[in-house]
């Protein structure tokens, strides 16, 4: 029986080629989106799952009572204290990124000098907790012995080629300095690991650093990430309470003094990557919001494609009604007919999914490029992928097939055989219209959304950030210095020599540059006379006298550091220039009021000497921060205002001077405005993907519309013929055939606008600086969908209207 269903389904598909092509193409487009999104979502959710202890691994985080923000950075004393006091802790490992960009060089091959961005110091237990396997070396000795290191296979190849790296040494100049012997090689860290590193150095070596030897800083110097492995099945809430108690007990005096408290949590590893809101340096993070967004888009796209199937099947019910009538007359039961139509739906779905699997393979590289993902996992070999494929096909078959199957099988043979049945009932037409409205509403939401995203990005790229970053080239100071050399003096020499290059118009040195955040934050910024518990968050940066001029910072009160009057004097409060936000947060009423006032930040007393107009140091996502600048000649970052003529030569000149003064240091530069714009890279990818999905949904919707119009004009051929005989013009006939669809698309628009407004307002909330959603966005999306839909509909309508009326009448 089944074979017979299959046979007739296949013959039906082949007989109505255009219809089948519309159905299969539309569905496969929807399925392709769905599969790509499934891969992306699997990739995002799959982060860190390669770890064998995945369910039992946690990162320790801390939520402060004052800021309400959660951070993953802790003091180095936390891990051992938790291990000792909380029985649920099986083991712990602290991780400390090298906050500098260390320079690593090979003694054997002096030409192999590289800046390395992924260096961590950690405890030996790290490798027992996490699954980062050694390809050579011994797990028992790895990270135990001082002066040893582990490196990734890629790093080993980079420094030692094909030689065996075990026993060889590398010079490391970074947060700490020393010669390290390789005693193990790690398999390269998988792309779906939130920790990315090429070098692991023993925690014991780091703790020798002078700053970490001071036991009073054991809890306060929060530069460490702490991971714990808990016993399986423990109550996380309970563990969190115990963690909190440990911290509150150890830091009792601090919390009492500042009248604050803290809540300590064990954050499951599965949450670490996707919960990008918890700050941790150098860890890569995703976003729940983006993942959810794409899940919704995937489901909606698939639904739009399924709607095509439902609409086309029920629209051409007249076609099938006779067959149903005959079958029923001969004795077919309804369930047999339902099954028959489901087999047809299944066949269409299988055809579509095969096509989708092929297109997914082709489109994956494009998605990787657009979304910045690295979907390289061979999903085809994974059972859950095939499970999803089967589930999507089954859901597609049922969603698309059930309704038409029931509609078609419900025809009464007596009427359909007389040519009376099979026409669409009022309800069925309304449902079909409703589904078209839904399709176009979804398309309009995506289209208007794309326009809003682009508008916002255009706005943030061109907004006045209160600084001028044009033609500013940044060069980092050296990491490796000869024994006994003084960095400040050598940097001064470098600046002197760079000034000789005619293309360099200005030079400044500072501890931080726009677009890169600050190195130093404190949550204790307050007026000296204020209660210590009222401190707010503030950043501090060290700049020289040329900084404000080079970046066009506007001084609105007091004096700048160019003035000789401003000098830091030992024993006196540090002179600082604050920005407007800092002045407001310090609760001064206006800038001038703050001049010469004493303030506290991070235990240090400062005196405000000037106020800069507000500026955006970071992307428009973050609100403006309170910033204090202090004068220094010791900043390690250089910013050079360069003439854009013959830039290549200028950069070559800078490189020559730099490498002459700082041999052994790789020369690296970038343009500050480009780096600043890089902060929007994720938003740009998001915008691109948004646009791609908008185009796809419109395409799928139009395919369906095309099919629907074909059938409806076919059904109205006689009417068109009669009208033509009676003298109707082509225009009026085209109007007659298109007005229903135009109305549906308009209805879709009306439905989509409030949804778009709401959803996109939520998206915009992610930006501290954002546009007002403009009316033209809706007009544009509406006009565009209407135009495309009209084009689709008109082709068929014009064809029907131009046909010879005799032909049309003969059809009947």
């Amino acid at each position, binding site marked *: 029986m089944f074979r017979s269903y299959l046979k007739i389904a296949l013959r*039906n598909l082949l007989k109505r080629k255009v219809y089948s092509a519309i159905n299969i193409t539309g569905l496969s487009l929807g399925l392709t989106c769905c599969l790509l999104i499934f891969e992306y979502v699997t990739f995002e959710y799959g982060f860190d799952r390669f770890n064998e202890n995945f369910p039992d691994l946690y990162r320790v985080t801390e939520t402060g009572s004052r800021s309400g923000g959660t951070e993953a950075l802790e003091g180095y004393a936390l891990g051992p204290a938790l291990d000792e006091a909380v029985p649920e802790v099986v083991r712990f490992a602290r991780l400390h990124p090298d906050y500098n960009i260390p320079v690593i060089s090979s003694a054997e091959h002096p030409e192999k000098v590289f800046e390395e961005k992924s260096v961590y110091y950690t405890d030996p237990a790290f490798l027992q907790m996490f699954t980062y396997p050694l390809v050579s070396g011994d797990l028992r000795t790895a990270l135990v012995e001082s002066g040893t290191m582990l490196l990734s296979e890629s790093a080993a190849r980079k420094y030692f080629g094909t030689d065996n790296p075990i026993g060889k040494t590398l010079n490391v100049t970074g947060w700490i300095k020393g010669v390290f012997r390789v005693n193990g090689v790690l398999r390269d860290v998988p792309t779906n690991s939130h920790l990315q590193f090429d070098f692991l150095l023993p925690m014991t070596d780091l703790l020798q650093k002078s700053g970490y030897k001071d036991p009073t800083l054991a809890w306060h110097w929060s530069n460490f990430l702490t991971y714990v492995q808990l016993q399986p099945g423990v109550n996380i809430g309970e563990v969190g309470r115990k963690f909190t108690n440990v911290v509150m007990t150890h830091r009792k005096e601090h919390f009492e003094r500042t009248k604050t408290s803290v809540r300590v949590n064990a954050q499951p590893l599965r949450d670490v990557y996707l919960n990008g809101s918890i700050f941790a340096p150098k860890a890569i993070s995703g976003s729940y919001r983006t993942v959810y967004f794409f899940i919704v888009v995937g489901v909606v796209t698939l639904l739009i494609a399924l709607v095509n199937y439902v609409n086309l099947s029920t629209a051409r019910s007249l076609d099938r009604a006779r*067959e149903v009538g*005959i079958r029923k*007359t*001969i004795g*077919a039961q309804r369930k047999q007919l339902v099954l028959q139509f489901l087999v047809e739906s299944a066949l269409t779905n299988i055809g579509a999914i095969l096509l989708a699997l092929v297109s997914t393979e082709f489109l994956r590289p494009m998605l990787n490029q657009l979304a910045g993902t690295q979907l390289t996992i061979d999903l085809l070999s994974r059972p859950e992928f095939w499970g999803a494929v089967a589930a999507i096909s089954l859901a597609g078959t049922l969603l698309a097939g059930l309704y038409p199957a029931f509609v078609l099988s419900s025809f009464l043979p007596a009427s359909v*055989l007389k040519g009376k049945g099979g026409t669409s009932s009022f309800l069925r037409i309304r449902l079909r219209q409703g589904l078209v409205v839904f399709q176009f509403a979804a398309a309009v939401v995506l289209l208007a959304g794309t326009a809003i995203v682009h508008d916002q990005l255009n706005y943030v790229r061109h907004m006045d950030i209160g600084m001028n970053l044009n033609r500013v080239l940044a060069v980092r100071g050296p990491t490796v210095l000869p024994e006994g050399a003084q960095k400040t003096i050598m940097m001064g020499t470098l600046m002197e020599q760079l000034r000789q290059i005619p293309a360099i118009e200005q030079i400044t040195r500072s501890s931080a540059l726009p677009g890169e955040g600050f190195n130093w934050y404190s949550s204790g910024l307050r007026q000296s006379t204020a209660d210590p518990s009222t401190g707010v968050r503030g950043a501090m940066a060290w700049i020289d006298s040329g900084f404000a001029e080079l970046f066009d910072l506007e001084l609105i009160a007091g004096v700048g550091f160019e003035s000789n009057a401003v000098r830091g004097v030992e024993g006196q409060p540090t002179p600082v220039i604050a920005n407007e936000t800092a002045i407001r947060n310090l609760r001064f009423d206006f800038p001038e009021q703050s001049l010469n006032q004493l303030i506290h930040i991070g235990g240090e007393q400062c005196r405000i000497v000037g106020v800069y107009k507000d500026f955006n140091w970071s992307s428009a996502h973050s609100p403006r921060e309170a910033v204090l600048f202090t004068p220094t000649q010791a900043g390690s970052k250089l910013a050079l205002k360069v003439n854009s003529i013959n830039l290549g030569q200028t950069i070559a000149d800078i490189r020559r001077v730099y490498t002459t003064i700082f041999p052994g240091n790789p020369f690296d530069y970038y343009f500050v405005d480009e780096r600043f714009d890089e902060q929007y890279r994720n938003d740009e990818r998001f915008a691109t993907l948004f646009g791609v999905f908008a185009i796809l949904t419109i395409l799928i919707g139009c395919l369906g519309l095309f099919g629907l119009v074909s059938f409806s004009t076919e059904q109205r051929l006689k009417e068109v013929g009669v009208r033509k005989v009676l003298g109707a013009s082509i225009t009026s006939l085209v109007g007659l055939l298109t007005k229903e669809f135009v109305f549906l698309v308009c209805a879709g628009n009306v439905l989509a606008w409030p949804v778009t407004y709401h959803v996109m307002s939520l998206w915009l909330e992610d930006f501290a600086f954002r546009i007002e959603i403009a009316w033209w966005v809706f007009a544009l999306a509406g006009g565009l969908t209407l135009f495309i839909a009209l084009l689709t509909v008109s082709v068929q309508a014009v064809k029907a209207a131009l046909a010879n009326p005799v032909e049309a009448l003969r059809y009947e």
Partner: protein
Amino acid sequence: MIKTMNLKRMYATDEVETTALNNVNIEINEGEFVAIMGPSGCGKSTLLNILGLLDNPSDGEYHFVGHEVSKYTERQRANLRKANIGFVFQSFNLIDELTVFENVELPLFYLGVASAEREKRVNEVLEHMGVMHRKSHFPQQLSGGQQQRVAVSRAIVAKPKLILADEPTGNLDSAHGSEVMKLLTQLNEAGTTIVMVTHSTHDSEFAHRIIHLFDGHVVTENIKEQFHV
């Protein structure tokens, strides 16, 4: 075999109620060949649909092979129909996507007859009807006469007690029409009851009895010859 008592069929739209059949009382015995005649719109096809269990009457009783079926559900009617009634239509109503063999096989398929048995019976019928050489063709590849032979083959393959023919020669030229009428006569002679709706006086000549309908009423019944059970 068939007995209707005060059979009524009304069609109602929002504003108009049309009576298609009004107090129709007929009786048809097994082995009879009955023609139903009348002008367009007199209710011939409505009657045939009810007799064929494709539709229910609005009122009255309908006894078919001993069952009172006027209140049967679609499912009950379908079960009774597929085992007892074969249909022949004016427009043949073959399924275009199925071959001749598959079209004829369909009733047996829905009766749940095993595959080997189906093949045997279909081949027998096709042989008998002289369309065996066309068994792998699709309906569109056949002449009208051949299509109607296939339709007749399909109607009789399940060996029904009753064949209902709705203008069986309406779409055929006279030569093919006569052929089909001969076939029906042969079937009737072999014991199958035949009820045929027709406009054609020529065709009605083949029947034992003619029932004339006018505006939903039975107006006359002509018994052409004495019918012997």
